[in-house]
């Protein structure tokens, strides 16, 4: 278990003083994957370096299994780092060492004998499905395989906490999926507390149990992934739900957005709602999926019902939260769908 208590990091003094992280509190229990999302410049990398103790927090503490690591001296800190395994972004392998030699690094630093290390390395490579690649150099491996080597290396000293710092960024979707399932497997088998720092929302959906959004050095929102997805008022939940541009609304209809707000939404809610309202429903867009064993989703529909209250009440009866999309916004979303690609490009540019 790892927890942060009022963690604050400040760089510089006087005029150049910049508060990068302010008063962060959260904890990750064993067997939990906790994702931290945020845009570039939110302080994610600094947070990662405070957690694996490469940077000392200005104030506040990092507590692993009940021990406060922030008060340790340089030498104790070096030993404490071994309790936290770190998976780095894809450039973290030593180019002149084979996969096996890369995995052996932490053992080598610790002073483990060659024979002992050899045994442990074989076990670790087998754990990540790379037994046949032990003597390959990083340039001979694919991006996903390189990341598996990084995971095996992070596990070498049997840490209780795993920190994944943009571990899937820059990987293709297949490799990302395989790394995500490996992490989940490791969490279950080894009972690890995993901190997953990323800017990729779709990866969060696949990997996280809980999520926190970091913005300008503050945690602005956090909670269990499913709870956030079921909360129509949550900004983070909204950012996590897959965005879609709805089909064109038929004339004389009003546009509504429905969010799955409970676990008890019947799968035939669409026809039930139609019957209850005595109206036909236009389906303009929807996505429903199972996340961590719970059904979540949202739908955009068109209705020719005049009374808003009736719609909201009928939806609530089915476990859905209905929100009327104002007609101005409807026309503007239709108009903005034209400009969508360019703004998407802008986002990509920012990410790059």
């Amino acid at each position, binding site marked *: 278990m790892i927890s942060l208590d009022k963690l604050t990091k400040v760089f510089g003094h006087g005029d150049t003083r910049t508060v990068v992280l302010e008063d962060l509190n959260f904890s990750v229990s064993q067997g939990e994957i906790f994702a931290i999302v945020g845009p570039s410049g939110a302080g994610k990398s600094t947070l990662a370096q405070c957690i694996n103790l490469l940077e000392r927090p200005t104030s506040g503490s990092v507590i692993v299994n009940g021990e406060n690591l922030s008060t340790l001296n340089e030498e104790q800190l070096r030993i404490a780092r071994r309790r936290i395994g770190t998976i780095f972004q894809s450039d973290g392998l030593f180019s*002149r060492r084979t996969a096996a030699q890369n995995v052996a690094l932490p053992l080598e630093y610790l002073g483990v004998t060659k024979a002992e290390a050899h045994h442990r390395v074989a076990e670790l490579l087998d754990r990540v499905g790379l037994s046949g690649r032990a003597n390959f150099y990083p340039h001979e491996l694919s991006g996903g395989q390189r990341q598996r080597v990084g995971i095996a290396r992070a596990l070498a000293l049997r840490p209780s906490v795993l920190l994944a710092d943009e571990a899937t960024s820059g990987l293709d979707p297949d490799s990302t999926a395989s790394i995500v399932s490996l992490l989940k497997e490791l969490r279950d088998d080894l009972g690890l507390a995993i901190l997953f720092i990323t800017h990729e929302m779709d990866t969060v959906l696949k990997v996280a149990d809980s999520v926190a959004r970091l913005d300008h050095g503050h945690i602005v929102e956090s909670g269990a992934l499913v709870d956030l997805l079921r909360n129509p008022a949550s900004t983070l939940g909204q950012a996590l739900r897959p965005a879609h541009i709805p089909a064109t609304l038929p004339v004389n209809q009003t546009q509504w957005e429905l969010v799955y707000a409970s676990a008890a939404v019947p799968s035939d809610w669409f026809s039930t709602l139609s019957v209850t309202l005595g109206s036909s429903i236009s389906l303009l867009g929807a996505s429903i999926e199972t996340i961590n064993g719970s059904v979540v989703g949202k739908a955009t529909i068109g209705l020719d019902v005049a009374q808003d209250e009736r719609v909201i009440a009928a939806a609530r009866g089915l476990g859905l939260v209905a929100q009327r999309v104002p007609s101005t916004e409807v026309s503007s979303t239709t108009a903005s769908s034209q400009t969508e690609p360019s703004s998407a490009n802008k986002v990509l540019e920012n990410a790059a």
Partner: protein
Amino acid sequence: MSYSFTSLVTVGFHSAVNDVPFDKIPALVFPALGETLIMVGIVMVVVVLVGIPLGALLHNLAPGGLVENKGAHTTVSWIVSIGRSLPFLILMASIMPFTRLITGTNIGIAAAVVPMSLAGIAFFTRIVENSLRSVPPSLVRVARASGASKLQVVRTAQLSEAVPQILGGLTINTIAMIEYSAIAGTIGAGGIGYVAVTYGYQRFDNTVMLVTIVILVVTVALVQLVGDAAVRLTTPYAGRSSKRMRKAAAPVSERALAA
């Protein structure tokens, strides 16, 4: 030595009739080549032993380094720069009292080794520093997060990863030292440069001049060849498309692993 400084001075300034007979040239040139190799060999051992720690220190004193210290970095950097900026002939002349203090003489191989080592160390320190800069700084973070001590970080995440670049630089450095040994020849340090200057230049013995040139070209080419091979052998990513690599890139095995 088959020739001495004084005898060469007395027989100097004669015409081609005093040229070294062709069959005597090997006896003159090969021992001289041996001296050059000994001189450069001793110098390079000193250069590597001092230059690698000094280069690593300089790299890590710089901002963002492991033992960041602005004052110390500026001082070391200036000392190295002074060593680099003096032309070798002037460096050699200016440190003669120091050389005499260490070796007790101002001429011969021993006297040449001191200024050559100093110039070589300054040169190599920069080469090591520059090689370490080419290593991704993320590897230092990886090593530290994996529990490495500072010395372990320097050894595994910096020097070891920069080995090909350092070997490439070492090759350049060795060749520069062969050149410096010829300059040192002018203070009677012996070696192939001395033969070239006294026989080829001062006595207009074109044959000796030509032979020394050929020997120097061949020596330098051999050093470069060995250096290039060493770089290639220590670079696993040197663009050798091995059979194994092509197999690894095959889509079938890829998919099998992802499953």
